[in-house]
C-alpha cells in the first residue's frame, strides 16, 4: 500500500465534515450554544454540497488505494449531505424542546454523515469497515440520545449489540475473502473472482458471511428484527437518519462491490439475494398491516422498500444503477419527510407515534396533514409522486433484465402495502368527536414547516416532471 499523489482538494468533503465536528466539539468546551452549533453544522453540510456541485461533479478520480470518486459516488454523496441537512433542520426544534444537553447531537450527526460518505466512495475493505463503524458508533449514541426515556436506552443497546454482531459477521467474511484472494481491494478481489468461475469454498463462506452482515445493516428479512424496535425507541429525526442515510450508504456500497467483482456470475449469490428481496417485500408489507404504531409501520415499510431496491440491484447494469439512484432520491425525501411530520407533532414527553395521534389531524393542522398525505402517497407509490416514478423505474430495470418473478412480487406486495398507508390517511381525515385529550399540542416551528413543505413540493415536482432529475442522474453516471 502506498499513498501517492493525494490531492488535498480531492478529499475535501471528509476534511470539511471532520473540521466542522471538531469545531463544534471545541465550541461546546467553551460555551454551550445550540444555535451556533446548528449553524456550524448546516453551513458545513452546505459547503460540502457546493463543493460537490462545482468541483467533484466534473472530476472523476481515485484516491488510491481506498477511495473511488466517480459520478455514482458523487451523486449519492450529494444526496446524503442534503438529507443530513434536512435531518438537522428538523432536529433543531425537536431537541430544543427536550434535552438539556443537545449540542453533542450535531457532532454525532456530522460524524455519522461522514461515515456514510466514506461508505459510498470506498473501494477497499479497510475504508468500507472504517466508514461503516464511524457511521454505526455515532448512531448508537444518537439512538439513545434522549437518556430519560426507557425506550431510547433499550433501543440504543439493542442497536449496539446487533450492529456489533453484524460487524463481526462482516469482518469474518472479509477475512475469509482476503485469505482466499490475497487482496482487500475490490479490483484485486475482482481479478481473483474472474479467474475462478466456480465459487471456491473459502470465498463462498466469506461471501455468505458478508451477505449476512450486509443484510443486518440493511435490515432486510430475515435479518430485520432489530429495525422496528430501534425505530420505535429512537428520536424521530434519528429514525429518519437510520432509515435513509445509513441504509442508503450501505446499498450503494453493495451495488458497487457486486458490480466490481461481478458477483452476478455466481447463481448461488443471485438466488440468495432474490430470496432476500422477495421475503423483504412480502414480510415487510404484511407485518406492517398489523401495527398500530406509526414508527413501527414505517420500520416495516422501509424493510419492504429495501426489498424493492434489491430488484434494481439484481437487475444490475447501467439501468439498474440509474433506478437505484432515482429510487434513493425519492425514498430519502419521503421517509425523511414522514419522520419530520412525526417530529413536528411530538410533544415534550413522547413522540407522536400512535395511530390515534393522527386521528382528525386534518381538522386540527391541515397543512401538516396535507404534507403527511403527500409523503404517504409517495411511499405507497401513487402516480404524480416521486415514489411512483421511482417504483416505475425499478420495474423497468427489473423487466429489462427479465426478472419477471421479482417484478410480479414487487407489484403484488405494493398493492398489499397500499392498505396501511391509506389507513393512516383515512385516520387523518376522520372527523374529530368528543374531547381531544389524545391530541398533542405541538409547538410549531417555522423552520420545520418550511423544510417539510420544500420536501413535499420536491416529491410532487419529481413525480410530475421526473425528466429533470433523470437527466441529472445520467449526467453524473456517464
Amino acid at each position: 500500500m502506498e499513498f501517492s499523489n493525494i490531492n488535498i482538494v480531492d478529499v475535501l468533503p471528509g476534511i470539511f465534515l471532520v473540521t466542522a465536528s471538531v469545531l463544534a466539539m471545541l465550541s461546546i468546551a467553551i460555551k454551550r450554544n445550540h444555535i451556533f452549533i446548528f449553524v456550524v453544522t448546516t453551513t458545513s453540510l452546505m459547503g460540502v454540497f457546493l463543493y460537490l456541485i462545482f468541483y467533484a461533479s466534473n472530476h472523476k478520480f481515485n484516491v488510491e488505494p481506498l477511495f473511488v470518486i466517480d459520478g455514482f459516488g458523487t451523486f449519492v454523496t450529494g444526496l446524503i449531505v442534503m438529507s443530513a441537512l434536512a435531518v438537522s433542520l428538523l432536529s433543531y426544534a425537536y431537541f430544543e424542546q427536550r434535552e438539556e444537553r443537545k449540542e453533542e447531537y450535531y457532532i454525532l450527526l456530522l460524524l455519522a454523515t461522514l461515515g456514510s460518505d466514506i461508505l459510498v466512495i470506498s473501494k477497499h475493505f479497510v475504508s468500507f469497515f472504517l466508514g461503516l463503524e464511524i457511521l454505526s458508533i455515532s448512531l448508537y449514541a444518537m439512538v439513545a440520545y434522549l437518556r430519560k426515556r426507557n425506550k431510547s436506552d433499550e433501543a440504543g443497546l439493542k442497536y449496539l449489540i446487533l450492529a456489533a454482531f453484524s460487524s463481526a459477521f462482516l469482518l469474518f467474511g472479509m477475512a475469509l475473502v482476503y485469505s482466499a484472494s490475497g487482496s482487500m481491494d475490490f479490483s484485486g478481489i475482482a481479478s481473483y473472482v474472474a479467474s475462478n468461475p466456480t465459487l471456491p469454498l473459502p470465498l463462498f463462506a466469506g461471501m455468505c458471511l458478508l451477505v449476512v452482515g450486509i443484510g443486518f445493516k440493511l435490515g432486510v428479512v430475515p435479518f430485520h428484527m432489530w429495525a422496528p424496535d430501534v425505530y420505535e425507541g429512537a428520536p424521530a429525526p434519528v429514525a429518519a437518519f437510520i432509515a435513509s442515510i445509513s441504509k442508503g450508504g450501505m446499498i450503494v456500497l453493495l451495488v458497487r462491490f457486486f458490480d466490481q467483482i461481478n458477483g452476478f456470475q455466481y447463481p448461488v449469490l443471485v438466488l440468495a439475494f432474490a430470496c432476500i428481496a422477495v421475503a423483504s417485500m412480502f414480510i415487510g408489507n404484511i407485518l406492517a398491516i398489523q401495527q398500530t404504531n406509526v414508527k413501527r409501520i414505517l420500520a416495516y415499510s422501509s424493510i419492504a422498500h429495501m426489498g424493492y431496491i434489491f430488484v434494481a440491484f439484481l437487475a444490475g447494469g447501467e439501468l439498474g444503477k440509474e433506478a437505484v439512484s432515482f429510487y434513493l432520491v425519492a425514498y430519502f425525501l419521503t421517509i425523511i419527510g414522514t419522520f419530520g411530520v412525526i417530529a413536528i407533532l411530538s410533544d415534550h414527553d413522547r413522540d407522536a407515534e400512535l395511530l390515534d395521534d393522527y386521528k382528525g389531524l386534518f381538522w386540527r393542522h391541515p397543512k401538516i396533514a396535507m404534507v403527511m398525505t403527500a409523503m404517504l402517497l409517495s411511499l405507497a407509490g401513487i402516480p404524480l409522486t416521486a415514489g411512483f416514478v421511482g417504483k416505475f423505474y425499478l420495474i423497468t430495470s427489473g423487466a429489462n433484465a427479465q426478472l419477471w418473478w421479482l417484478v410480479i412480487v414487487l407489484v403484488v406486495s405494493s398493492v398489499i402495502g397500499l392498505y396501511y398507508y391509506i389507513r393512516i390517511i383515512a385516520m387523518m381525515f376522520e372527523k374529530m368527536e368528543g374531547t381531544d385529550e389524545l391530541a398533542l399540542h405541538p409547538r410549531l416551528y417555522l423552520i420545520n414547516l418550511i423544510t417539510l413543505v420544500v420536501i413535499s413540493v420536491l416529491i410532487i415536482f419529481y413525480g410530475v416532471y421526473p425528466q429533470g432529475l433523470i437527466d441529472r442522474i445520467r449526467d453524473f453516471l456517464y
Partner: protein
Amino acid sequence: MQVSAEYGLLLASVLFTLGLIGVLVRRNIIFMLVCVEIMLNAAGLAFIVAGSKWTQADGQVMFIFILTMAAAEVSVGLALILQIYHQLKTLDGDAANSMKG
C-alpha cells in the same frame, strides 16, 4: 514451527462460533457484549492469519482497526448498560425488552 493457514482459520472459526452461541444463549447484557467481543477478535485473528499467509502487513493493520473500533464500541455500550441499570436495576436482557422485537 510453521502452522498452516487452514489451522489458524479453523481456530478463528471455532472462536467465532463460540461467541455466536454465547450471544444467542446468554441473557446477561454484559455477557452478550463480551461474546460479541469474542466474535470480533476471532475476525481479527482470521485477518492476522490471512495476512501472514500472503506475507502482507494488511491483516495486522486491519486487526488494529478492529481493536480500536471494539474499544469505542465497548465504551458506548458500557455507558448504555449503566443507564439501563439505573432505570431497571437489573442487567437481564429479557427485562430490557419492553418492545417486543
